[in-house]
């Protein structure tokens, strides 16, 4: 029987990395509905929050639970800014992800084929994954995540290293994954992407979750000064007040 995933709860989570508090007393509740985009300046703690929610990093203080359990369930996947491809073909990378999750060989082949078609890369299925372009590798990473049929997909700045065309393609694929029933939590610096994609915005500033606001209201009328300064491009470095 599949383990339950939702709700995902972060309670007073603090993460210290090399003596620095990357995340400070973060509280977040994910019920598996909607598209959440995490925004914040560089070093605000967005990627750390994503990794804690996914179970890749343990909190220094506080707790993270999935459906009330501290045991990390499988029905979640993550795509990183720079995808790591194994030294094998593109399709074998997708099949590998399913094999380690216990999917049988023939079913893994079938689902990998479907996933690579969904991302429009069936023509490069037999090419070495590491020889593909950055945009193609990111799409293979999305296919690899999608093939696992996760209920929750984390995306850590998935378009940050891509040109506009490749970024648009990734955005389209993420939209399709969401439409197919997978909840999405994404970090990005791309405000245009956040506006188009998000249902809710979680805004972080210096390791703290400053606000969680419906996207349309966030971009129209953010609740916090830090978010307003951020949107105006006037968020000062390492200070709690504006430079004006």
């Amino acid at each position, binding site marked *: 029987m599949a383990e339950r995933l939702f709700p995902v709860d972060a309670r007073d989570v603090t993460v210290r990395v090399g003596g620095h508090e990357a995340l400070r007393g973060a509280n977040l509740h994910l019920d598996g509905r909607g598209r959440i985009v995490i925004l914040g300046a560089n070093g605000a703690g967005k990627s750390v929050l994503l990794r804690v929610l996914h179970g890749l990093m343990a909190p220094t203080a506080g707790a993270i639970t999935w459906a009330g359990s501290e045991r990390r369930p499988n029905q979640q996947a993550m795509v990183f800014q720079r995808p*790591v491809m194994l030294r094998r073909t593109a399709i074998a990378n997708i099949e590998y992800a399913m094999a380690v999750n216990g999917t049988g060989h023939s079913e893994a082949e079938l689902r990998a084929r479907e996933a690579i078609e969904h991302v429009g890369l069936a023509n490069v299925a037999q090419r070495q994954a590491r*020889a593909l372009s950055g945009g193609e590798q990111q799409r293979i990473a999305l296919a690899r995540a999608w093939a696992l049929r996760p209920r929750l997909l984390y995306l850590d700045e998935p378009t940050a290293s891509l040109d506009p065309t490749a970024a648009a393609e990734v955005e389209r694929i993420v939209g399709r994954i969401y439409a197919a029933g997978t909840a999405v939590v994404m970090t990005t610096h791309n405000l245009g992407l956040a506006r188009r994609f998000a249902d809710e915005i979680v805004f972080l500033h210096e390791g703290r979750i400053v606000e969680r606001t419906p996207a349309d209201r966030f971009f129209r009328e953010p609740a916090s000064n830090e978010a307003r300064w951020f949107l105006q491009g006037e968020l000062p470095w390492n200070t709690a007040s504006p430079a004006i």
Partner: protein
Amino acid sequence: MSDILASFVAAARLVTGGDPNLWSVVSLSLEVSLAAAVLACLIGLPLGTWVGVRDFPGRRAVIVSLNALLGLPSVVVGLIVYLMLSRAGPLGSLGILFTPTAIVIAQTLLVLPIVAAMSRQFAEDAWQEYREQLLSLGVTPTRAVPTLLLDLRYSLLTVVLLGFGRAASEVGAVMIVGGNIDGVTRVMTTAIALETSKGDLPLALGLGIVLIVVVLALNAAAFAVREWSLARHG
């Protein structure tokens, strides 16, 4: 000078003429070295990779020990294996001292730290890159060991060839546990040492030429494989 030149000419005749004495020594040498390299890799590659990716109490001590064993004097290894296999030793009943098996054991013990230490370093470096992605997919560090072994296969082939080269070029330990018995445990390195001391320079030189060609060919193969894999896989 003319003596040296004459020795080289005679050595070349032995190598190209298929001298049975020379080629039996070469054949045994390659057999025991290959067996030792295979054994050391079967143990050392997974062990080194596991140490490279796992976090466990005493890991640093294990890494320091592995690295320290790289400098293990081969005659000491020979002496320890000799003591273990000698009639009064704990494994004396096996009766394998002064046999090719004893040489394989000594060579394996010499090559194992090299294979384990180098594969540990390769795996640790790769783990920095792969760790989050693999853990995200649900791969445990132990399950990551075969994945890394497969993904690092071209880099690790260099380690395998290096291990084979180390085994093939060993003298001291092989001399102690093998006894350099003609037709039984005489390998290239021990034969070169013996023939040189006897003054039979052509045979010693002939064996030296073969040994150098083997080592050169291995290094060329390792280089070619790495170049090819970089071009193919990036």
